[in-house]
């Protein structure tokens, strides 16, 4: 059990020395054995890795997590349930107990409004919500149909997905990865949230330098995505940096200004990375850039690919609307809502997979796509003249689907299953700790050995739980 001895956890050997830790981060990897896997992966001047060596040969060097905020309905996308047709208009049978808590009164079963077919050589049953992804890449995808947790509202469910716990503020998977692995590109943060709804996602007990940097549209009118406080218009930067160096050393201070220098390098490198104009028209077309429905998300995903290429380790790309928040939250108008949302992401996601593939990036990049929870087989009870129609589904954290593609996962594989109505995960259930353990494993980390000492004990992303879902590993 005690594998902590295999890692150098800065909090493990108390008294924890903050200055020591900072200094180590300034040194970057210089002070760490060059023969290990991380060093071969990268030479970084960002936060130093806390792990001196990886526990496994990593299948993935980076993760792109496409997050469909609000709750993609599993039973309208990838979890095919013929029973929904049979029971249409009827209550769920007694064998499917209602959960302890639902948001609204539970209505009768509604069938999926989408048409279903088998796709690809794997013959995967999927709806026509994502025709481009399914038509071109279904055999590349690996599904877990049995994810589950118990948080029924968006706020805590998203926290569960990102941090493993619903209520307390803990570090996100991204922060843990940067804490464990450090950065790959000395000019860029190692963890980036693209169009997050929560731009200041806290790092919990991990120091602030492990925070994800956030990229968003500076305003509703601008299609371009931008970095907060990054302004290439600050001219004569070199001269300013020179002044800072002169001033610090004249002032008897330390002329080493690593963070300031990283900021300047970001100012130099990031505008180029953020500028999608250097991409060919064909590539832009691939992501649906320039077309009404897909322009926004296409830009986000193309940018994600550029960052991935530049060495960012962990990216979340959130499909959410700043005005409405939980875009995929179809308590009513499921058919129109899901269709509209899918239309804005289908082409960009297919474009991303294609692009990663032809660039050879999919070999060491893991793409994940899913939501904070799925939706119920029944409609949500709301009626009346001005009220909602009985054509939407409630939240369902008890069994939902997420797909994976690329590095380290078994293409065309389906893991786990829900009951006949897609309500509860019943076979090979995967909880969030298992999910996180598996992601850390794919990045070369033993989830039991990545720990941070805080408030009198070691904390882990997976707490005291989690087992790697080996069945999905290639």
């Amino acid at each position, binding site marked *: 059990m005690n594998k902590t001895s295999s890692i150098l956890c800065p909090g493990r050997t108390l008294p924890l020395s*903050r200055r020591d830790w900072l200094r180590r981060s300034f040194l970057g990897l210089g002070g760490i054995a060059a023969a290990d896997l991380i060093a071969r992966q990268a030479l970084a001047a960002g936060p130093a890795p806390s792990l001196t060596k990886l526990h496994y040969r990593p299948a993935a060097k980076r993760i792109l997590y496409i997050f469909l905020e609000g709750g993609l309905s599993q039973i309208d996308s990838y979890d095919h349930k013929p029973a929904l047709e049979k029971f249409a208009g009827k209550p769920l049978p007694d064998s499917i107990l209602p959960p302890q808590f639902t948001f609204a009164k539970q209505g009768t079963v509604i069938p999926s409004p989408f048409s279903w077919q088998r796709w690809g050589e794997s013959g995967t049953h999927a709806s026509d919500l994502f025709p481009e992804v399914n038509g071109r890449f279904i055999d590349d995808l690996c599904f877990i149909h049995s994810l589950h947790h118990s948080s029924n509202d968006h706020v*805590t469910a998203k926290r569960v997905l990102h941090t493993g716990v619903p209520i307390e503020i803990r570090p996100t998977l991204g922060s843990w990865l940067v804490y464990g692995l450090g950065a790959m590109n000395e000019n860029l943060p190692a963890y980036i949230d693209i169009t997050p709804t929560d731009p200041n996602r806290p790092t919990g007990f991990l120091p602030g330098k492990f925070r994800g940097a956030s990229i968003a549209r500076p305003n509703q009118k601008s299609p371009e995505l931008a970095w*907060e406080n990054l302004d290439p218009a600050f001219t004569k930067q070199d001269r300013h940096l020179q002044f800072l160096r002169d001033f610090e050393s*004249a*002032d008897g201070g330390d002329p080493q200004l690593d963070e300031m220098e990283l900021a300047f390098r970001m100012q130099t490198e990031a505008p180029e990375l953020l500028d999608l104009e250097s991409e060919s028209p064909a590539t832009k077309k691939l992501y649906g850039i320039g077309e009404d429905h897909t322009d926004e998300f296409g830009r986000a995903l193309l940018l994600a690919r550029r960052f991935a290429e530049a060495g960012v380790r962990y990216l979340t790309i959130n499909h959410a609307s700043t005005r409405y928040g939980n875009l995929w939250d179809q308590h009513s108008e499921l058919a129109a809502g899901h269709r509209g949302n899918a239309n804005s992401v289908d082409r960009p996601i297919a474009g991303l997979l294609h692009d990663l593939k032809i660039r050879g990036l999919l070999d060491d990049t893991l793409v994940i796509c899913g939501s904070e929870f799925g939706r119920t087989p029944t409609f949500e009870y709301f009626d009346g003249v001005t009220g909602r129609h009985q054509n939407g589904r409630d939240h369902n954290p008890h069994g939902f689907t997420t797909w994976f593609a690329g590095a380290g996962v078994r293409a065309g594989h389906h893991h786990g299953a829900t009951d006949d109505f897609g309500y509860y995960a019943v076979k090979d259930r995967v909880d969030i700790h298992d999910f996180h353990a598996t992601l850390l494993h794919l990045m070369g980390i033993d989830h039991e050995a990545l720990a941070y000492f805080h408030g009198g004990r070691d904390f882990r992303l997976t707490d005291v739980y989690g087992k790697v879902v080996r069945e999905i590993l290639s």
Partner: protein
Amino acid sequence: MAPPLAANDTWSLKPLVRPTPPAEGNVVDAFIRTRLAEVGIQQNQPADPLTLLRRMTLDLTGLPPTREEIRDLRSEVGSQIDRLLASPHYGERWGRHWLDVARYVQGTIKVPGIAAIDLAEPYRDYVVRSFNEDKPYDRFITEQLAGDLLEGEVSQDRLVAPAFLSIGQWFEECTDPNKLRLDLIDEQISTATRAFLAIDFACARCHDHKFDPVSTRDYYALAGIFRSTEITSHFAEEWKDGRPRALRPLASETELRKSESIDREIAALREERLRFLTKAQKKLAPMAGSAIPGTVLAFEAEHFDGHKDLKTIPLGEGEAVALRRAIEPWVRYRLVLPDPGTYTLLVRYAATDPAPVQLEIEGDVEDRRVIGEATHGETPAHFRWGVVALGERPEGRCFIRLKAGRNEPFPTLDQLVLVKGNLSPDDRAWRERLGTPTAEEARFFLDEADRDILTKLESRLINLQKSRPVLPLTLAVRDGEAPLELAVHPGGNPYVTAGDPVPRGNPALGGSELATAFPIPENTSGRLQFAQWLADPRNPLTARVMANRVWHWHFGTGLVRTVDDFGKQGADPTHPELLDWLACELIESGWSVKHLHRLIMESKTYQSSSAVNPDNLAKDPDGILYSRFPAHRLEVETIYDGMLTSIGKVPRQVSGMPLDTSKSKDRALYILTSSRSPLGMGVEIRKMFPLFGFDDSGRPMHDRDESVTAAQALWWLNNPLPRYYATKLAEKLIKEYPDRPRERALALHEILLGRPPGGEAEAAMLGYADDLVRHQGVGTDEAWTRVVLGLFSSKSFRTLE
């Protein structure tokens, strides 16, 4: 499971014994230098007087020294310490330190549940006041845990202080009320035990503490105390109802009784009026109702298309929509208009007090005040119709939103009717068609004599309401009706218990004699006894923990590095005897925190230079042996206040005078949690804080994150906030020293860094400005703005050195 470790295994639980100083002279120095001598290093020379002035001024007041103070520096260090300790700004600085431990956040910060803490300011001001008054720390503990239970005259401090238990992070979206109830107790236990004991009892909620002598029985004995304490105004089982924090008027018993008696009179008069109106109503022949001409749509209010902070309640046979919680509630309806034209919406509602709402159509504010005249009650008899003119509308979808102001009441809504055409509110024709008139409307039909009686009633009511004192509210903590005891919940599971309820009581870790020294009377929660146990000089942890915190806040590191963990997993003290000596001094001085400041600041250890001496670095790399003053990053509040004060925005208040918060209101302590948006940059200010290590999530901050990040560097370069202050300061300096750039540079350096620049620093500043102007085509204002920005982002500006 292994039994909990015995208390005597842990250094921090051994009885506190006053150590003998190892040498003559300043005792702090004696302990520190003995240790330095052991490893064979010399303490640094004293810092130069200006560096020390800046260090002490920032340390005690959170503000840099003024130029006058820099120029007039003549007095002895001792009298400077006295002046700074007497400064009203001292409480703002050291009170903020305590607020970190007490997990104080509030206001606009977006954490679920946190938004509901609207009245934490009185607690904040209490903490500031307590530090300024040098309130004995044992009293400070007792007031925060049990101020409401203390004997003697009720004071403002006693009423406000227990908010310490109430300002925690709550989860309004928690779906299980039974779990939530235990979560709230856990939050109180965890915060209090970490704050006062530096041992987190929360581990023992699920199992005996793995490392420290805290058993589940200890935990549930305390949990019983907090279970017997009420911090919510009610605890609805329906999660959507939220759990509002209990409030009470900030007033003495006499004032309360006076106000309550007026309330009773008002209620009686309202009853009388209702009886009168009902009688009058019965005289009227019932008017037969029929549909209103032009009715397009009639529907129940509960058929909304979205709402915030509202709930559906039973009303007579049907249902109505009513207020859940008073923070900008609204309700939205989606209407479908059959064709273009003028429309009117009739709304049947009731409201005890006036509750005007704002009308929004398709997101645009159409009318700031519609419906919502008081109907003086909310029984079915009180409902009446209000008229909402929608004006000219195109056909098709039309979103209507009715929204209350912040903290304003919302009327209870029953039915809505959409009609085509323009209806006047005073038109009796349509009113009569809507069925039996309500009691209020019966006024229209009263005769002269009855109307007179009614008018007199109303004027008496109005006068009474005017004479009712407006009592400010504060968060309330009180004992529940009957004390409750909790059995152990293994694994923290609210639905599983093991064994009998654990009697309420104090933990055993301070020794069994102390644990039983304060028996809890039958009819009280036991908070007071818990506070007495904590504040007892025999408690081995309390004084040690606070002495260590004071040291930590001075030096940036504690004598115990883990300031919130004095348990087995925490760090051992680097200077155990010094810590114990300080703890004894704290107790014997009558728990005076200012006494500790003097002891520490008068030492050569505190006054030594922060220069890193290469010879000492190997033996004391982190400065924890105090061969030098360990330079450390200032908290974000001090950085922000430093910019603010550079353009004269914080008038200094005179030492020895009480704090005038109105003069200080722009300081970071206040601005973060107020809704003020100075310079229109409230958003930028609120974003700045988390960027510099301020955790705004509502959990305790025992040790601020001092990370230096690239995001901060970008912020210094490009964010409008530092640029604003830099521009203002540059303008000011150019105006004051138009042709004298050297004096300009001198002033700038003194204002921001507290001392004149050395020759090279001056040359760097002048050279940069000159270069920008002469060779880069930049204007003088912009050039100096950049020089200021450079100094803002310099290590000296953001470091206590």
